[in-house]
């Protein structure tokens, strides 16, 4: 379970007189439960990625708290990271290592033995339908192959919580469907708590049990797709989202 409360983060760009601050996140709160897929939906620049980075202990929040299975991320980031699998938008692999070596390397850093990590790589390859890739060097992998390898790498330590930052970016239809299937299986078979961010409606409609709408760094609405539709009085989810995420003025301007 991931519990985020009143998170805030401000960035300062430039120095001296030219400096100006950007309030990237300004009061994001949500609870992602185990055995559910929670989607963070928001327009570009809404603060989704920043929020997820803070959850993954890469950034220190200015205010607010993040608890992963009851562990305060700021207080004990290493223990929290051990219970999280994070696929961020940076998902670089080592091109001169095989997919298996890439996955096992992270397993070892998570304290697994060589053989345990390798076994886990086999199991994940089966889940993600990438067994033939394991022995190949990752140089020249397609986007989909890269994503699968990176996801397997993030899940090697079998974390109860999974965070994915725009995982379908750059993937074709088949790869996207394969990823969706894998996430559903992780939720149904293993009861994982899955949080992923996206700005694509269909993805949320097809996959999410719970949607958190984020705009201007704030949580503006949350609930299931149906309840959000009811809340905004629209039948189409895209219309609901636009209504919820943008102010009347912003909608007119576009």
């Amino acid at each position, binding site marked *: 379970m991931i519990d985020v409360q009143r998170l805030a983060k401000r960035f300062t760009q430039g120095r001296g007189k030219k400096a100006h601050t950007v309030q990237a996140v300004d009061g994001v709160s949500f609870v992602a439960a185990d055995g559910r897929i929670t989607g963070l939906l928001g327009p570009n620049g809404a603060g989704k990625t920043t929020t997820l980075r803070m959850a993954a202990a*890469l950034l220190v929040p200015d205010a607010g708290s993040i608890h992963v299975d009851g562990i305060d991320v700021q207080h004990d980031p290493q223990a929290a990271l051990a219970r999280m699998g*994070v696929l961020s938008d*940076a998902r670089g692999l080592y091109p001169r290592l095989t997919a298996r070596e890439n996955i096992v390397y992270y397993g070892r850093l998570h304290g697994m033995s060589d053989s345990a990590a390798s076994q886990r790589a086999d199991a994940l390859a089966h889940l993600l339908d990438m067994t033939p890739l394991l022995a190949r060097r990752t140089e020249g992998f397609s986007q989909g192959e890269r994503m699968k390898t990176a996801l397997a790498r*993030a899940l090697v330590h079998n974390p109860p919580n999974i965070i994915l930052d725009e995982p379908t970016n750059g993937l074709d239809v088949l790869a996207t469907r394969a990823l969706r299937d894998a996430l559903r299986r992780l939720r149904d078979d293993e009861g994982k708590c899955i949080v992923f961010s996206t700005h694509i409606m269909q993805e949320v409609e097809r996959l999410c049990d719970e949607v958190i709408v984020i705009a201007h760094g704030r949580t503006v609405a949350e609930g299931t797709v149906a309840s959000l539709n009811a809340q905004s009085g629209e039948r189409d989810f895209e219309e609901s989202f636009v209504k919820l995420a943008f102010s009347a003025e912003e909608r007119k301007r576009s």
Partner: protein
Amino acid sequence: MNAWIVFRKELLDALRDRRTLFMVLLSSVAIGPLVLVALSALVAGIEKRAEERTVVVAGIEHAPTLRNYLERQTYRVDGAPADYELRLKNQSLGDPVLLVDKDFEAELARGEAPLLEIVTSSGNQRAGSSVNRLTRLLRGFSSEQATLRLALRGVSPATLEVLDVQERDLANPQSRAAQLTGMLPFFVLMAVLYGALNAALDTTAGERERGSLEPLLMNPASRLSLVIGKWGAVAAVGMLIALLSCLSFLPAQALLRSETLAAMFQFGVREAALFLALLSPLAAALAAVMMAIAIRCKTFKEAQANNTVVILGVSLLPLVTVFNQSGEAPWHLAVPALGQVALMNRVLKGEAVGALDMALPLAVCVLIAAAGVTFVARQLRTAALR
């Protein structure tokens, strides 16, 4: 434990970068022995001409007395080719040419000083190296003639020899050879630098550019252990290159064509071990410095540009001994790269290198490496992103 895992992975990664490794081996490990062999060919050529004992003269028919003298000194007299000026200029003639005036014999008999011209070109090194020998030869002829004339007048030749000047050379064969082999430590140093450069950039800026730094930092491993593992791997690659380039001199000696140089250049297992003992800490320190510079860069290319400063520094520092004619100062040993080159030169000269001499550069390298590693770890802690 984590550091060991990172170390193993980074080392494997670096060793799989075959093309880069091959280029490093080719350009830095092979170049030392190649220079050595080229040097020996040069020295052998000079020696060969010294043994040849030929003099190239234009107009020897005008000077039978001189010819007689030269032949008594067991020199062979060759006639100069007609286009000797051109051939001296374009370096196809490797000997200076002696010009004899047609009135030489008559002027010599009259007791006037006949003119002898030595034609050479200072752009022609081969010819230039024989000028001294020819001048000495002619001075010998001149003094023989003078002695004869004095003897005719009943004067002892010793009246002209007021002084008896003799040279005594204190240099042992090894230190004579060190004049020629003095640039070898520099090549070895460069080999280590370039060997470690690629790995240093790949594990820092390259990791960031690839987008693999952020996922790596999301592992529950301390930043310091990650950095120590990476640094260890980079330093190990540098040391490996150092080992290979030191060992490459051992078989290279067999290729030496000049016997004198082969006799003077004694690079055995002991010398190789001393070189390695000097270079290994330096490789570790350079690895840390290059990583510290690269970690702030967003791309491999940017890191490469920034590390030019290190490369320039390491290549220029040893030149201090060249610009500074007063010789080796104690502070030289405390300067990285300069200290190592100075000590390696001492090893080549066969001079004693004490434990204390080794300890000072080692301590400096340890300090630099520790500072670099700490800096990189701190950079990762505060600026994990972009």
